[in-house]
């Protein structure tokens, strides 16, 4: 396989300042508090492929997605889009051309569409912003094509978002994301607000669009079954760090990291007794005071003294990347 990564992430970190207000710090002597949302994340996304990131709430998936489209500036590290630093380019005048090439699909199709705009205005906004259309007639025709490509009727353009069901709304947000003809789509939990039968329709649509247009996806989800369906590579995150990264096939047939195994075990199975489930212990710790060493050690069945003291580095191990003392 020739390696031709579209997006490269190098040592990416994001800290948020969640300190109490200045006055409280002075009077009550409270310290500054920094929340490390994403720490030293490295990965590449190959052109035309899908990288999925999974993890529980608060593990930094969505922060990472926002870093990748330039909605947040990184605290450390960099994102390279076709080899050029993304955040530097976006700050320059020619940044708009780059922004056209990456779009985002959000989780909640009820919150991500303006309820007072007609669908044609929603889908047309990127067209006007990026000046890909010149006239109103051109614009309407393009909106019609886009709606058709996501399985909606061009006549739907005159309706308002509230006239659509959740699945149809998510199709509208996909149409809007496709309007600027992007190459890279960041999908932040695109189906978790949808029912299973609707989810199947939206996932199939996303796979079809990827095949037709050669799109590259970063797919963020907490649902491992969905991830298995759509992705080529999977990265598992825990408390802001990548703990395991492998091809989808390998990750599901041979999960190595204890956290990955725990996540897979936790999914309720449709077939009973297919596997004895490990009782899952504990909850995700508070990211403001992460545990020492490996952040997973308080919940890990294989934890040793080494895990409590020293943080495992991400290592290449038998074709996958993993950060665990017990495995590699």
């Amino acid at each position, binding site marked *: 396989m020739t390696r031709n990564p579209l997006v490269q992430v190098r040592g990416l970190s994001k800290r948020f300042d969640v300190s109490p207000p200045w006055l409280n710090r002075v009077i009550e002597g409270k310290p500054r508090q920094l929340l490390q949302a994403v720490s030293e994340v490295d990965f590449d996304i190959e052109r035309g492929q899908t990288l999925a990131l999974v993890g529980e709430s608060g593990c930094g998936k969505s922060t990472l997605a926002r870093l990748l489209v330039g909605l947040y500036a990184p605290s450390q590290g960099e994102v390279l889009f076709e080899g050029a630093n993304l955040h530097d380019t976006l700050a320059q005048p020619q940044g708009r051309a780059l922004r056209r090439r990456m779009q985002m699909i959000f989780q909640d199709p009820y919150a991500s569409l303006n309820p007072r705009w007609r669908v044609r205005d929603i889908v047309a906004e990127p067209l006007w912003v990026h000046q890909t259309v010149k006239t109103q007639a051109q614009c309407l025709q393009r909106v019609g094509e886009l709606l058709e490509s996501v399985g909606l009727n061009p006549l739907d353009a005159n309706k308002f978002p509230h006239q659509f*069901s959740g699945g149809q709304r998510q199709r509208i947000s996909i149409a809007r994301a496709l309007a600027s003809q992007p190459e890279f789509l960041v999908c932040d939990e695109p189906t978790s607000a949808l029912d299973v*039968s609707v989810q199947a329709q939206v996932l199939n649509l996303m796979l079809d669009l990827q095949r037709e247009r050669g799109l590259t996806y970063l797919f963020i989800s907490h*649902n491992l*079954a969905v991830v298995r369906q759509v992705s080529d590579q999977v990265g598992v995150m825990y408390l802001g760090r990548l703990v395991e990264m492998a091809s989808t096939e390998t990750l599901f047939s041979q999960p190595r990291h204890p956290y990955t195994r725990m996540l897979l075990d936790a999914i309720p*199975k449709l077939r009973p007794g297919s596997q004895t489930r490990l009782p899952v212990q504990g909850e995700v710790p508070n990211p403001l005071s992460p545990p020492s060493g490996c952040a997973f050690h308080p919940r890990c069945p294989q934890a040793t003294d080494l895990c409590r003291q020293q943080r495992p580095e991400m290592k290449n191990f038998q074709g996958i990347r993993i950060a665990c003392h017990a495995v590699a």
Partner: protein
Amino acid sequence: MALLEVRNLSVEFPQRRAVLKALDQVSFSIEAGEILGLVGESGAGKSLTGASIIGLLEPPGRISEGQILLGGARIDDLSPEQMRHVRGKRIGAIFQDPLTSLNPLLSVGYQLTQTIQSHLPLSAQQAWQRAVQLLQDTGIPAAAERMTNYPHQFSGGMRQRVVIALALAAEPELIIADEPTTALDVSIQAQIIELLKRLCRQRGAAVMLITHDMGVIAEACDRVGVMYAGRLVEVGAVQQVIHAAHHPYSRGLMASIPSTDVTRERLHQIPGSMPRLTAIPSGCAFHPRCERVSPRCLAERPVLTPSDATLTHHPVACWHPLHANHALSAEDSA
């Protein structure tokens, strides 16, 4: 005798122009100690069924037809005052979002003791001890110290444990759990399902578990009912419904669930979407999306009965039910 019996329950919402029928002739029963699941897409009427049973239908919604019997006695026609004694005492409720079902201004201990004392004749001290015991049973560490904590000091999973403790406070015979794990992470979800199952088994309480997650149903329930457009279309033992559903809708729904065990090129998808309440199709509500549709499906509404004992193993509302070994037709495209 079944613990809960719902007979031909219909719920209507009168609108300015028309009357919306949100539940249409739903009948099922729950035996003592049994866990019955209700699945379906959003808007299918699952939560409304639960709300009707605990008497929390939001006006103008009203029960237009049918009966709800708890332990053989009707509870759908009780006065609000009488219903208050049934709710909490005989029927406990667990809702989706643990943060909104707890009062943020009152400590967890106060909320628990209030609930216990309003249903059981216990002194304040006894109620307090009982509350600590309940929190311990639900697996909250250092339960006695946490009694004075407020809901925001608990994590999502712990909060849901508190809600379960509240629901169990008066030893109800029936628990209505409406999407109890939907707001939680998978690892926490597994813990909560285990807990709910264990506690209800111990106390012999029956559970009606409302969820859209088939995995949760498969793990927890004995029987499951599938709802579509306000109607119950199929009820049967969990493994039968999951692996050999008779109704084409149930079959399509099960096939559209992605799995971690196998990868398919494309997921099975049911064409179209669920009808709005304002435009429920004639006859069988599923007929516009069904691949086995016949003229009879348009004209006559199928009722939930085993039409032919040799064909079906459990009740299904369909004129052309699928056999257990009947495969779904070839993949339908987008």
